[in-house]
């Protein structure tokens, strides 16, 4: 590997700019989805606020050297675990789930920030583990790091968010390295455990979601309704879209959760296939850039930090976009940087900041 030895941190403006453009598109879509029913524009203005806070956090997480963050990662991780425990004991139920902490009239989900902290812990682990394949002990360690918060989130019980930790485990196994026979053993284990989980742990509403996925006609006005309406919105957008602020599906509230999980359907309706391709292209650019950063990172810890964080974004984008047209079942997984929501907007900006952080310091002499 050849390093350009300039000795100064260089910021990749294309990467940050792409993230910012996506966030701006998000604000416009949130505005378009809600201006009719909430004329006070409270959603759009709040989303602008989240983006501004997110940008500040992003800058903060760029300035601090990620090696310093590796050093404090155990403390952050511990704080996250304490918050999750606090939720379990004192949390208020919001829509069947204890995943929100309420302070000063705001609510936030510690599980979102826990994603960052866990990613830092995993990257820190691989920073000092440099074998091509994980041995059994280190495999258990890394699964323990991921499994602890996942366990605490599952008992909330918030399966959607817990599932969002899946990419971390995948990264650990794929990039950490697992031998073929272990893969086979794990696939077998999942095949055995899954039916048990279905009958013993899934709540009826969760089973219902899976069943509707398998058969969308099952409940036309329930969750299947969301997918049907989203598909109508997207399909009726056609190639060119109905135009900004002109989506009837979104305006007349046929489309549920249109400013959060189904914001992509608003995009599809108002901006058409062209808008869809542009936004997908922006995401792809973000991913390709990040993976390129990962290849050129200064050390193994940096590489793994980028891979962990970008894997979150990849996972969210793929799952969310797929569920818009019914390729995957509806889950409460937001679209990175586009969906309305404070915790997730902040968390993705932090992720972007950390990726840029590693990229900035790819030269050994950089401060």
């Amino acid at each position, binding site marked *: 590997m050849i390093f350009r030895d300039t000795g100064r941190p260089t910021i990749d403006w294309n990467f940050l700019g792409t993230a910012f453009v996506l966030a701006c598109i998000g604000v416009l879509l949130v505005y378009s989805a809600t201006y009719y029913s909430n004329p006070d524009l409270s959603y759009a203005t709040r989303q602008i606020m989240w983006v501004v806070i997110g940008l500040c956090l992003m800058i903060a997480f760029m300035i601090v050297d990620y090696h310093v963050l590796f050093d404090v990662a155990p403390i952050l991780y511990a704080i996250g675990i304490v918050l999750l425990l606090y939720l379990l004991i004192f949390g208020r139920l919001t829509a069947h789930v204890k995943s929100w902490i309420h302070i000063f009239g705001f609510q936030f989900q510690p599980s979102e920030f826990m994603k960052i902290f866990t990613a830092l812990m995993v990257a820190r682990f691989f920073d000092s583990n440099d074998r091509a394949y994980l041995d059994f002990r280190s495999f258990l360690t890394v699964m323990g790091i991921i499994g602890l918060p996942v366990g605490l989130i599952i008992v909330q019980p918030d399966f959607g968010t817990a599932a969002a930790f899946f990419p971390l485990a995948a990264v650990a196994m794929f990039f950490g390295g697992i031998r073929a026979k272990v893969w086979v053993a794990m696939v077998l284990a999942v095949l055995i455990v899954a039916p048990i989980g279905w009958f013993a742990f899934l709540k009826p509403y969760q089973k219902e979601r899976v069943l509707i996925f398998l058969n969308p006609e099952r409940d036309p006005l329930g969750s299947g309704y969301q997918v049907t309406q989203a598909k109508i919105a997207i399909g009726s957008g056609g190639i060119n879209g109905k135009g900004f602020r002109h989506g009837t599906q979104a305006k*007349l509230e046929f489309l549920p959760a249109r400013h959060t999980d189904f914001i992509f359907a608003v995009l599809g309706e108002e901006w058409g296939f062209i808008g869809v391709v542009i936004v997908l292209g922006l995401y792809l650019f973000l991913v390709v850039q990040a993976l390129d950063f990962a290849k050129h990172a200064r050390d193994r810890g940096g590489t793994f930090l980028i891979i962990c964080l970008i894997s979150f974004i990849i996972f969210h984008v793929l799952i969310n976009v797929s569920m818009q047209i019914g390729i995957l079942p509806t889950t409460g997984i937001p679209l990175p940087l586009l969906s309305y929501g404070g915790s997730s907007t902040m968390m993705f900006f932090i992720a972007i900041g950390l990726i840029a952080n590693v990229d900035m310091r790819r030269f050994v002499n950089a401060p």
Partner: protein
Amino acid sequence: MRVYRDDQKFLQFRINAVLWGIVAAFVFLAGSFWFVQGVQAEKYRGLSEANALREIEILPKRGLIMDRDGKILADNQPAYTLQIDRVVMKPLVKADEQRRAKLLAFLAQVLQRPPAEVQARWEKEAKEVPFTQPFTIADDLSMSQVAAIQAQSIAFPEVNVVPVQRRNYPYGTMAAHVLGFIGEVSEKEIKQNPDLEQGDLIGKRGVELMYDQYLRGRGGAEYWEYDADGRRLSEYVPARKQPVPGDNIYLTVDFELQRRAEQYFAENEMVGSAVVLDPRNGEVLAMVSSPAYNPNVYSKRFTPESWKEITSNPFKIELNRAIQGLYSPGSVFKIVMAMAGLSEGAIHPHTNFGCGGSGHFFGRRFRCWKKEGHGAVDVRRALKVSCDIFFYNTGGRLGVDNIHDYARKLTFGEISHIDLDGERAGIVPSTQWREEHPVRGDKKWYPAETISVSIGQGPLIVTPLQVANMTAAVANGGKVYQPHVVRYVDKVQTDGSYKRFRVPSRVLHEVELSPAALKAVREGLWAVVNEPGGTGSNAFVEGLNIAGKTGSVQVIAYSGWIKATSLPFKLRDHAWFASFAPADNPQVVAVIFIEHGGAGGADAAPLAKLLYESAFRGQVAGSRLDLRNPETLEKIREGEPPLPSPR
């Protein structure tokens, strides 16, 4: 630098593999969107146009509640509410800044309410109801109001008069505590039941609450087409979803019995309760709690006046005294004492105790209600004349824990699991109970207290339903049924017909009562009503063998023998009468409780007489009917008395 360089190539390879995998996934997604937006666009465009339809909810008809023979006790009546549609209003407001103010003035004038009040409700409703759903601004419009609004319907297209169903109880307060009432769903209830929505009316008490999931039905919807500016065009009929009406419910309550009992309480301005049971299956034939509320008041939006009417009543009209009122059982408890004494061998049918008007037990003097005393009494006569001294002796021999065991077996001290809400368990004292509930730190139960409990006083409190259950168990030989007020649920089927489900009779447990004990107690109870000198002779009905027991409960402790009627109302004794008939083949159990009624024999027993005359209507004069035949009695109760056999 670490050794990891060796591994770098490996990592690079994996990253590249992932990269190509992701590119493939994005291409696949873009292709899928192309399929939906390019290939199928026309199909979805058509659907989207049909989707510029707004869903307008149609409320289901709530199920009827009827008495056991189908007489309607709760139905639905048409009423008109006034709704505002914000989707229609929005473009109008854009065109005319003063629109809202004009509309408010118009509404205030039509409704004859202060504009501030109309505006306050507007703001409250607008916050709670989703933007696309119309919200209600006024209920129960009069016909002239409807006319005045319809006349302006072109000027104010956002205002709609909407016909709705108003829950109606045609007999007002009749059986109010069994029926319960409905009201608007609360935040808490919505959280508990995801089927409910803001503004839904659901059962809040009684059968309306307990059987709400049957009565509620399922809402339907109409779909109206709107243009891009929110103007309503026409209904899209093929999409209409018909509402499913709620299931109908038949109570076990007999209209005629219920009416008789309530009338008695009303005519005599009495406060209290009456419970009539079928001892063969636990069906509640009548349940009265007087005074009662009018459930119609709750069906409407509360006004300050109607709220005052409910809260200002000093007699706690919402309390269902039959299952929530806790009282000392008084002498009615002597039935339990006699059963316990005979079954445990503390006394025998021929055991005699001498009554001289008072006696000493555990160092204290206790009085019999009769100053002159009853002389030598056995259990039969002790029940008949309600001699206190006899039961003091019995109680002394049994001890409080034996009494507790039998009282518990005979349904006291726990809820009966009747299908009504808010039932209370009462208290049956025992040595263990005293340990858990010490009096000023003293955990010891004193034997002298047992003597008070022996005549149903002391820390022993029961509900009228428990007394009825106990009486039913004695009448049917020891079976304790789960009492219930619903007989059938007629469930609506998909084709609109009804399928009938009978609420099963369940025996909760069976008490072992010796035949000798049953015989002695039943004879004693028969004598109470049918022999000269019995305390319950006011309940006597020619041609019917009624067995019963009177009770009078001291409300305040007074010493000496005084006449209850000389006391002020609130301090007067409570009156009880627990009974069943026919004595040798019990079909009906009637328990009457009158708060501050004075004496059980004088005030409660006459109502039992009326009830039995009503329950066995048609047969009282001609005693030649075969009343031992259950089928005959069933027919009589159904109002079709068979002809007396010519003998």
